[in-house]
C-alpha cells in the first residue's frame, strides 16, 4: 500500500563515531556527567545563608526529593549517609534518559547496554560491599543465604533460590529494566515517526490526511517518555536504596 521500511536495528541505535570509540551515546553520557557536576558545583558556590535562587533552588529541590522520596522511604534516618551516592545515580540516569526526547539528540544513552550494565554492576558491588562491611563476610552471607525463621529442612530449597535471586538476578533485572524500558520507548517513537512519514508521503493521496493519527500518537508518546525517563531513574535509585538497606540492616 505504501512503502514502509523499518530500518535495521543498528541504524536507529548505532551512530557514526565522532572520534575513535566516541559516538553520540558516549557524548551524551559524558555531557550528562558534566552537566550534573557543573550544576551542583555552581549550586554550592552560593551563600547558603541567603534565600536560594536559580541553580541552587533546583539543586536543593533535587536533594530534598532524593532524601524524602527515596532514602527516608526505604532506609529511614540511618540511610541518609547514602544520599550523595543515590543523588548522583539519580541525576546521572535522568540526564542519560532525557536526551531520548530532546530534539536533534533523540537518543537515550541508557538504551545501549553499556551504561545500565556498568551502573548495575556498580550497585551490585556496593550493596554486597556494604553488607559485608556492616555484618562481616560470614554474617552477610549467612543472612542472605539462610534467612532466619525458616524450618531447617526448607533450607535445601530456600538457599539456592536466595542465592540466585540476590546475587545473580538482582543486577541482571536492574540492568534489563532500565535498558529495555528506554530501548522500547526509543523504538516506539521511531515506529510512529516512520508511520506518519510514510503516510504523509504516500503516493495514494487519500492516505495523506491519515498521517495525522500516528503523529498525534507520536506527540502523546513523547509526553509519555518524559514521564518514563523520570520514572526509570527513580525506580533504579529506589531499588538501589532498597538493596543497600536490606544488606546493611538484615531482618532478624
Amino acid at each position, binding site marked *: 500500500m505504501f512503502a514502509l521500511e523499518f530500518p*535495521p*536495528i543498528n541504524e536507529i541505535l548505532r551512530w557514526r563515531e565522532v572520534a575513535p570509540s566516541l559516538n553520540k551515546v558516549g557524548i551524551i553520557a559524558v555531557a550528562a556527567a558534566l552537566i550534573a557536576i557543573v550544576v551542583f558545583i555552581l549550586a554550592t558556590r552560593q551563600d547558603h545563608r541567603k534565600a536560594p535562587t536559580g541553580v541552587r533552588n533546583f539543586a536543593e529541590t533535587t536533594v530534598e526529593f532524593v532524601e524524602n*522520596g527515596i532514602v527516608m*522511604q*526505604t532506609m529511614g534516618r540511618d540511610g541518609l549517609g547514602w544520599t550523595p551516592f543515590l543523588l548522583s545515580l539519580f541525576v546521572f540516569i535522568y540526564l542519560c534518559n532525557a536526551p531520548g526526547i530532546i530534539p536533534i539528540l533523540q537518543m537515550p544513552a541508557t538504551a545501549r547496554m553499556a551504561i545500565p550494565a556498568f551502573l548495575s554492576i556498580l550497585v551490585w558491588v556496593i550493596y554486597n560491599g556494604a553488607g559485608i562491611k556492616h555484618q562481616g563476610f560470614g554474617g552477610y552471607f549467612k543472612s542472605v543465604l539462610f534467612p532466619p525463621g525458616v524450618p531447617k529442612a526448607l533450607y535445601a530449597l530456600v538457599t539456592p533460590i536466595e542465592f540466585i535471586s540476590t546475587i545473580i538476578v538482582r543486577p541482571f*533485572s536492574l540492568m*534489563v*529494566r532500565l*535498558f*529495555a*524500558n528506554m*530501548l*522500547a520507548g526509543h523504538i516506539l517513537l521511531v515506529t510512529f515517526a516512520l508511520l506518519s512519514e510514510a503516510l504523509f508521503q504516500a503516493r495514494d493521496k487519500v492516505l495523506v490526511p491519515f498521517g495525522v493519527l500516528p503523529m498525534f500518537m507520536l506527540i502523546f508518546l513523547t509526553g509519555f517518555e518524559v514521564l518514563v525517563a523520570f*520514572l526509570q531513574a*527513580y*525506580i533504579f535509585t*529506589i*531499588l538501589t536504596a*532498597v538493596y543497600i538497606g536490606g544488606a546493611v540492616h538484615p531482618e532478624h
Partner: protein
Amino acid sequence: MEALARLAAETVDTVAKTAADEKNIAAAASAGFAYGLAAIGPGIGIGYLVGQAVSAMARQPEAAGMVRTTMFLGIAFTEALALIGFVVFILLKFA
C-alpha cells in the same frame, strides 16, 4: 509455536527460499508471540497492583506517600518479566 511458524512460512511466497530465509521467517513469527505472551502476566499483575494501591490510598489518604513508593517498587518487579519478554523479542527479531 512451531506449527504456527510453519504456517507463516507456507503463507509467504513459496519461491526460492534459503535456510536463512526460513530462519528469519520462523524468528519473525515467534518474536511476536514471545512478547505477546510475556505481556499477559505483567499486564494482569500491574493492573491488580495499581488498583489495590489506589483503593488503599482512597481508604487512607494520609498513607498515600508510603503506598505510592511501595507501588512503584511492586511495578518495577512485575514489569521486569514483560521487559525480559521484550528483550527476547529484540533478540529473536534482530540478532
